[in-house]
């Protein structure tokens, strides 16, 4: 089982790095979808011994939304816009990759510092969840286009949700409903905003969205 | 009892002899200049003549102009009440009386000044301006000096202060401090009475005058009051200088009194000598002299702190 987990983790980390290094939006969305699938399935491996219906349902919902629905919505949004590429990011792609390495190190360090009570094997998972979260945040910071920022946001959500699914499974369903609801609403409302931005500025570049200053 | 009588006698003597001091000064200057000079009693004659004259008032003036000489004379006269003379305590001696003394002189000055301003003349305005400037600087010198005297005397009235002054007193609080304070007072005496090197009472050259120019418009009885008040002021301040620098005391009231009058005469002669030998300082130099006097008095005070 651990091999599977390790393989999945390795894939996720690779996905994180490639997210940082890719300029084509559609490719980003695909990576994200893959990542969503992987991370969504992780709990299955984790709770293989005590698999309950709840976990199965969670996993199903998570994989379907993150692996299929969101990517589909986002692809549509990208098709609607003129730009297909992030041409001039705030932080270039090479530095982004370097920072991604640093973030990975930081995540590993933090994961080591946060020992899970009674669960030794999951140490890496904490790090990976944190790393995914950080990479998502980094994308928001380092990319200029609104759509890429939404993607970053989704990556971040991926990391957090994974963490929740794996470690906070004891919490009743309501919370998870909230999580999905919110993730959906975030994408939906943000998508709406992206649409609005596109209409208002004919452009998805957030450079235009920095007029309000002191 | 004797002292009380002596004090009253001093009052009368001062009121009577004050104009004579000016005569002595003028005679001294005449001697220096090789002239015969005017009679010693010239001022008395002037006063008598002026009192018999009518008056000319400028149409610009108000009651302030008429009040000026009167208030000036009244204030100087009242100030005489607290001045001790030749070891005789003043009639009105009380703790802190020298503050009243200084402020009465200020009253006199204030009214002289506003009377001058009342004429609207630029010359008198100029004199008034200089007068207030220089007297404001003379005030601290006088008061700090008196405070020093009060400290060494252990009492806060002029009479206490001067009773404690002895000739040839070379104790820790005598000698040098007294000399410094006496010097400061002499400067104040010259400045306040509009003598050379601060002012020239004889010229009528506007640009150099202070006191004389302020009273240009007064005439008749008013001018008599002004001149008499000036003479009295010379006397009271002179008494303060003499009380420090020439404090001859024998213990016999009459003898001391005589010495005191003689000392006043010496002071008048000394003033005449200064006026004959010194040139008037530049106007900008006057403040320096007065500040120096304050410093002298302050150092005098500091020496008494030991």
């Amino acid at each position, binding site marked *: 089982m651990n091999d599977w987990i390790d393989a999945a983790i390795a894939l996720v980390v690779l996905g994180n790095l490639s997210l940082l290094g890719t300029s084509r939006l559609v490719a980003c969305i695909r990576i994200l979808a893959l990542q969503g699938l992987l991370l969504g399935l992780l709990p299955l491996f984790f709770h293989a011994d005590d698999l309950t219906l709840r976990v199965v349902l969670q996993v199903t919902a998570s994989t379907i939304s993150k692996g299929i629905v969101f990517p589909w919505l986002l692809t549509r949004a990208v098709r609607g816009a003129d730009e297909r590429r992030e041409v001039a990011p705030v932080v270039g792609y090479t530095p982004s990759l370097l920072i991604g390495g640093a973030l990975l190190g930081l995540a590993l360090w933090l994961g080591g*510092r*946060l*020992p*899970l*009570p*009674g669960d030794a094997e999951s140490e890496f998972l904490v790090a990976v969840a944190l790393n995914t*979260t950080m990479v998502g*945040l980094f994308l*928001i910071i380092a990319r200029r286009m*609104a759509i890429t*920022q939404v993607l970053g*946001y989704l990556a*971040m*959500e991926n990391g*957090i949700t994974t*963490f*929740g699914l794996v*470690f*906070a499974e*004891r*919490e*009743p369903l*309501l*919370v998870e409903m*909230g*999580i999905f*609801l*919110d993730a959906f*609403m*975030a994408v939906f*409302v*943000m998508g709406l*905003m992206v649409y*609005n*931005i596109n209409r*208002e*500025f004919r452009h998805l570049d*957030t450079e*235009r*969205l*920095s*007029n*309000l200053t*002191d | 009892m004797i002292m009380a009588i002596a004090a009253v006698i001093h009052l009368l003597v001062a009121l009577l002899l004050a104009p004579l001091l000016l005569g002595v000064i003028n005679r001294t200057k005449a001697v220096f200049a090789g002239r015969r000079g005017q009679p010693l009693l010239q001022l008395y004659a002037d006063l008598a003549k002026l009192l018999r004259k009518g008056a000319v008032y400028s149409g610009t003036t108000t009651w302030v102009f008429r009040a000026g000489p009167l208030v000036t004379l009244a204030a100087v006269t009242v100030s005489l009440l607290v001045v001790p003379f030749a070891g005789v305590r003043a009639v009105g001696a009380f703790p802190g009386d020298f503050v009243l003394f200084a402020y009465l002189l200020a009253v006199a000055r204030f009214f002289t000044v506003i009377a001058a301003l009342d004429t609207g003349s630029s010359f008198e305005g100029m004199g008034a301006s200089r007068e207030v400037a220089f007297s404001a600087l003379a005030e601290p010198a006088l008061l700090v000096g008196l405070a020093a005297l009060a400290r060494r005397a252990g009492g806060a009235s002029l009479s206490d202060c001067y009773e404690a002054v002895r000739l040839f007193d070379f104790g820790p609080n005598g000698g040098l401090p007294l000399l410094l304070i006496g010097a400061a007072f002499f400067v104040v005496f010259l400045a306040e009475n509009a003598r050379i090197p601060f002012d020239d009472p004889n010229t009528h050259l506007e640009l150099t005058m202070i006191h004389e120019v302020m009273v240009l418009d007064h005439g008749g009885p008013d001018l008599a009051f002004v001149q008499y008040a000036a003479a009295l002021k010379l006397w009271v301040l002179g008494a303060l200088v003499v009380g420090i620098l020439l404090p001859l005391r024998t213990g016999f009231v009459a003898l001391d009194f005589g010495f005191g009058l003689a000392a006043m005469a010496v002071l008048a002669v000394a003033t005449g000598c200064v006026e004959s030998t010194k040139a008037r300082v530049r106007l900008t130099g006057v403040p320096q002299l007065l500040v120096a006097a304050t410093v002298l008095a302050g150092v005098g005070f500091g020496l008494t702190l030991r």
Partner: protein
Amino acid sequence: MIVALVLLPLTAGALAFFLRSDGLRRGLLVATALAHSGLTVAAWLRRPLAELGGWLELDDLELLILAVTSLLFLVAAVYAVGYLRREGRDQREDYTEGFLFVNAPEATFTGCLLLFLGAMTLVIGAQHFGLMWVAVEGTTLASAPLIHFHRHHRSLEAAWKYLVICSVGIAIALLGNFFLVVATSALDDQLGGLTVRALAEHAGQLDPTWLRAAFLLLLVGYGTKMGLAPLHTWLPDAHSEAPSVVSALLSGALLNCAFLAILRLHGVCVAAGQAAFSANLLVGFGLVSMGFAAVFIVGQRDYKRMLAYSSVEHMGIAALGVGLGGAAGFGALLHVVNHSLTKGMLFLIAGNVLAAYRTRSSAEVTGLLRALPASGLLWLAGFLAVTGSPPFGPFLSEFTILRGGLAAQRPVIAVVYLVLLLLVFVGMAMIVPGMAHGETNVARRREPWLAVVPPACLGIGVLILGVYVPRPLADAITRALGALGLS
């Protein structure tokens, strides 16, 4: 009852989207606000029972915030009626850039306003950290369209920033919630839900490292919403671009809700023996917020942004007060009440000023007292109140916090706090009186009572709180502090 409090505005909000008549919808808005206030009063009089297995409960702290929120919403609703009447739906010219734009449909505005209230009520009532988190996210989603009411690029930008920044914050808070769950893993099944009460009861068995990490994440997450510097960056943009009614609610009600969430976790930390850790963080954020606000208030050119930064400052004060504890804690909760009323009033007045002068530049506004006497007077009074001058409410609370700071043997913090307060005063004194006094080209006009009476009511409230702190209020604050373990 609590469910009713939450559902009432939610249903009314949903209904508002479908009502066709403007009059009816406005009536619905005010009626809902009134009903909500009525229920709140009822809750004060008779403490409602906990519902949904303890997930919803109104304790003293909650009642306090609920009362402020409800009151402010009522006032804002009344003001909104007048505001919507003025706004209209035809094309309008933008004040600053001169382009034409239209407003969002009124139904969207009213509906979102009501949903916003529902979400805020849920935040207040929710004792479960998960539910609370859902509700906080709900407030973001409900209020973003409100900010984008004027459909033009600036308000879009403000709404976008609001959404992005608050979403990032809320995501971090979600991670914090998970951390919190991890912290409870030693308890297995005894916990019975991630409620404030349960956590406080079992605080001793929580894993300290994870609890602290969870507090950090939640503080940063909700702090973004609350407007603690340097997480506050959405505030000035959103407050300056949103309609003034919305700004008033954002500043006076929403920030409190986020603060409430942080307070609750602070209470858990106190119970778990981590008081020093969380308190120091609050103090730190408080001072940094005040400092940020001071820097941006001094020389500020836009009076609505100035008010927004002032909100940052006051949230900082509240955090600082809670962090200092003792008397300062009392002051902090009192300050939350005072600040809501004051800032609500100021934003509503700012709306009047904006409508009359058609500029947000404080330099271009002069002679308020001549053009709009009532608004001008309230504007000046609000400035004095918000800077903590007697005889207004914030003075008492700020003074109490100062007292608490010195009593807690933290003179340096108290002095820095005071200096920052004074700096903000100086900064605002350079701006506000200049707006109120002087001559003006704007013709003197009759001010509609709907535009003046609501803020005036708030102003009177602030004045009363400055000379008299009602016993029930003081008692409620004391008990609330006791429940948090801060007294």
